[in-house]
């Protein structure tokens, strides 16, 4: 028997919000989950408490994102509630009201990147990232690990924490060569000051319980053991399920429950998962039971058939090669760093497509290579909406040199002809300025 844990549940199905009437992200999405959770009587358990979500504020969003032109223009109340729900989950855990919490909220957020011109991958703002920076600001925790178990690579979360060595971002997902957003390969390991702290585990289509749990036991858990985070967050996407309509994996409700049980996240936040009727009710009940330390062995989909979901030996062989290689890569992360170019800037240019809103963005991002902190970052971003902006991001625990450099660049960059707006996001002092 597992020890019983006090578990907080922030349940917000937003029954009056959809991207469009037949969009996967629609009113019906958590309907049957709610039915199952209510019918199982989960809210009657002494150790499970339900909480109303709070509303995220503009400050919470500006601590993470550069919204163009501003936060209120890119998100609606539904996004504020879903980010607010994640924050409520964090508050309940960090104040000690509960041992762990699950924000079962929508819409999701892990495809929302640092700069936001609109919605991509059904996401406008990154609710976990907002929660992570909220935790740092209000509770002072430094080392935070995010384990993203959504079937899609969490390219937004990766982007936001790319240069942050204090945030370990691990994403396990369907191989980007076969699924949106087409990223999340092993060689994406983080910016020059945070090499290795982004860890991508792309699994082949039709990976079953066996493959996911192999990666969990032989890679994710040992890496977490090394990193020793203060807090573990699970971006609990549920679209690895064998019945999900927009992905190709073979994971199960039992698998999700076992994964949650072993991972022991302090906070889980719902991400994707669109098999609303045949998967979500069972996965969510499994996750809640696992978090609360209640026997989940009877949670099974009505059509669950282990024989049909047996993993192809080729898939098994692939994963058994991939996982040790990635673990080696993690262990050698210190040597990934090139000879010190401290003080110089490294840049990357990217094209970003916002599929949900059909916006194209061209971005040039530069980071100051720094041995003392995550490094000051500048972003020059131009979107097909006609908006071009420039942003300076001073990292948390910024060193004096990066701060000086960042402030100087911000002072020297004018808004007007070239840039519609110039932003300064000072994460260290929690100041956000736009000119």
């Amino acid at each position, binding site marked *: 028997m597992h020890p019983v844990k006090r578990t907080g549940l922030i349940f917000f199905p937003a029954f009056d919000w959809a991207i469009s009437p037949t969009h996967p992200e629609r*009113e019906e999405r958590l309907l049957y989950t709610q039915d199952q959770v209510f019918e199982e*009587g989960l809210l009657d358990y002494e150790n499970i408490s339900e909480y109303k979500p709070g509303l995220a504020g503009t400050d919470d969003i500006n601590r993470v994102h550069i919204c163009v032109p501003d936060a209120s223009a890119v998100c609606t109340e539904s996004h504020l509630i879903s980010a607010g729900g994640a924050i409520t989950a964090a508050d309940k855990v960090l104040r000690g009201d509960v041992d762990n919490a699950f924000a079962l909220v929508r819409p999701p957020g892990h495809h929302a990147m640092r700069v936001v011109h609109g919605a991509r991958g059904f996401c406008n703002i990154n609710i976990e990232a907002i929660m992570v920076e909220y935790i740092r600001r209000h509770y002072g925790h430094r080392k935070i690990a995010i384990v993203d178990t959504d079937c899609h690579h969490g390219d937004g979360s990766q982007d936001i924490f790319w240069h942050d060595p204090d945030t370990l971002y691990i994403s396990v997902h369907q191989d980007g060569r076969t699924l949106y957003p087409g990223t999340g390969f092993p060689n994406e390991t983080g910016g020059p000051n945070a090499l290795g702290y982004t860890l991508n585990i792309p699994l082949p289509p039709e990976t079953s319980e066996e493959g996911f749990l192999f990666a969990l036991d032989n890679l994710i858990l040992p890496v977490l053991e090394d990193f020793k985070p203060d807090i573990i967050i699970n971006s609990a996407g549920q679209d690895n399920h064998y019945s999900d309509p927009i992905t190709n994996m073979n994971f199960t409700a039992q698998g999700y429950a076992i994964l949650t049980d072993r991972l022991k996240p302090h906070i889980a936040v719902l991400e994707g998962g669109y098999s609303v009727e045949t998967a979500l009710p069972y996965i969510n009940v499994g996750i809640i039971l696992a978090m609360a330390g209640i026997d989940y062995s009877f949670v099974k989909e009505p059509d669950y058939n282990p024989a049909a979901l047996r993993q192809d030996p080729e898939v098994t062989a692939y994963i058994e090669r991939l996982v040790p290689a990635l673990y080696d890569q993690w262990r050698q992360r210190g040597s990934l760093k090139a000879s010190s170019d401290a003080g110089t800037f490294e840049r990357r240019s990217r094209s970003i497509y916002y599929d949900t809103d059909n916006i194209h963005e061209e971005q040039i991002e530069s980071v100051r290579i720094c041995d003392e902190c995550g490094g000051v970052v500048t972003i020059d971003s131009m979107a097909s909406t006609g908006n071009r902006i420039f942003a300076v991001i001073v990292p948390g625990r910024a060193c004096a040199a990066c701060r000086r450099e960042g402030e100087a660049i911000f002072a020297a960059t004018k808004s007007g002809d070239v840039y519609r707006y110039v932003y300064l996001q000072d994460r260290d002092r929690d100041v956000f300025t736009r000119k």
Partner: protein
Amino acid sequence: MILGIDVGGTHTDAVLIEGRDVLEKVKVPTNSDNLGGSLLEVAEQLLGTAGSRYPERVVFSTTISTNAIVQDAVSTVGMILANGPGIPPSYITTDENARFVSGYVNHRGIIVVPVDRREVEVIAKSFHKKGIANIVVAGKFSTRNPRLELDIDDIVGSRFAHVSLGHRMSGNLNFPRRVATTYLNAAVWDIYRNFVDVVNAFINRFGKRFPVYILKADGGTLEINRSADYPAQTILSGPAASVMGILSLADCVEDAVALDIGGTTTDIALFADGVPLLEPRGMTIGKYKTLIRGLRTRSIGIGGDSAVRFEHGGFVIGPHRLGPAAAFGGPTPTPTDAMIVLGLTSPDGRRKAEKALEPLAARAGVSLENAAREIFDETCRHIARAVTAMIEEVNAQPVYTIHELLEGKVLRPTVLHVVGGPAEPMAPRIAEYLNCRAEIPPHAEVANAVGAALARTTTELTLLADTEEKTLTIVEEGIRIPISSGFSREEAAEICLDRLRERALAMGAREEDLELEITEDQSFNMVRGFYTAGKNIRIKAQVKPGLIAGVERGDPSCTR
């Protein structure tokens, strides 16, 4: 003229009432060994005073079912449970007569695994062997599709004296609560059936028929013969009687707090726009969490006779009562003694009260008067804090739409209605702490009986329509009929209200008392692939808890 009787734990209150005018009132000790007998004795006494007039109705609030459960004096029940995947069976019940079967229904109301006739037959035989006469048939999601429960009933039901079916108890989701509720219903069925027979025999003696109603936990009534198969509904009607009493004696139209301050405990209830709030998931009785619809009340361990101590530099009131107030020969100082010393209540026993408080005052290092003042204030503050906590809990209740979250009703009571022994002295002070206006209704001492007498018949109904499956389910009635794929939410609402009206009339409601309202109205597009496969419509409607017509607010016969 209406006869209302409330059999409470210690007292039985009875009133004869016309409009809202109390003609006669009686208060006698309850004989807990013969609840039915003592109730009818009081009825006979009051009906005697009415001379040749017969009441147009009689309403009882009784603790018969409640006591049977609390004292575990219930029948042995066999349970056939269809649980399906999810929570392990051992978490639902560990009753030795519970049997889990393989058939089950999913959240959509689709029978995933049908009933295994042989399995059910074997279980029925084993119950027979044990001499079990009452059984329960309850399934997970039977409120989405009652067919599976009905199938089991069809196979073995006729072999037992009584079968309680899960979906008849409530249209709400919560399988463990459904099991507990259905169990309690079957467990008190015999004892309650017997009570109904005794009442019917009593009424027949008068040679004239007048309807008899039973008060339910939700503050509504149910015709007694209709209640015979649903005794669980009559559990915990006591607090409901008190709340309905306040509703009928006070002019309650706004957000309000009702307090019933007793010797040992104080009961708190809340009104939103004059309508009493219901417990969101159902009533709890002892170890049983149920789906029984009931008024939301909280009982706290503080009252006029609570023991007062001085601890850690302050006065602590309750939660125990060690006896009556010191003024009346009790063993410890109490808030009542403080009120006597302060001259807030009748000065009987003042000397004794002072003597009991003196050591406390000495320990606190203050004058007797100041000690009494502080005890009184702390008692009122303590109650006010509990009220505030309950209001906060209501306002923190989760909601599931953006509209409700941003614009939902926030409860902000402006009036405090107080009944009970120390109501007069305490009401103004508590009201001050709550920033409310205090009101003490007349006839407060028999409020419970008045509440029972004037409560209207209530019921609720749940309707589900699935236009992909092309079925309409009227849950509490166990009806499932085909519909067309174009069936609309408007049609669903109309059918739900019509059926609710019929149901309420069948349960004893009068046409003029029917205040119907839709409490839940949802329609979801079910999208499969990128096409809308159908609509999932969910409607719930109720007869609002309230008073019978003719005695409502503004009625000329009851202006005071």
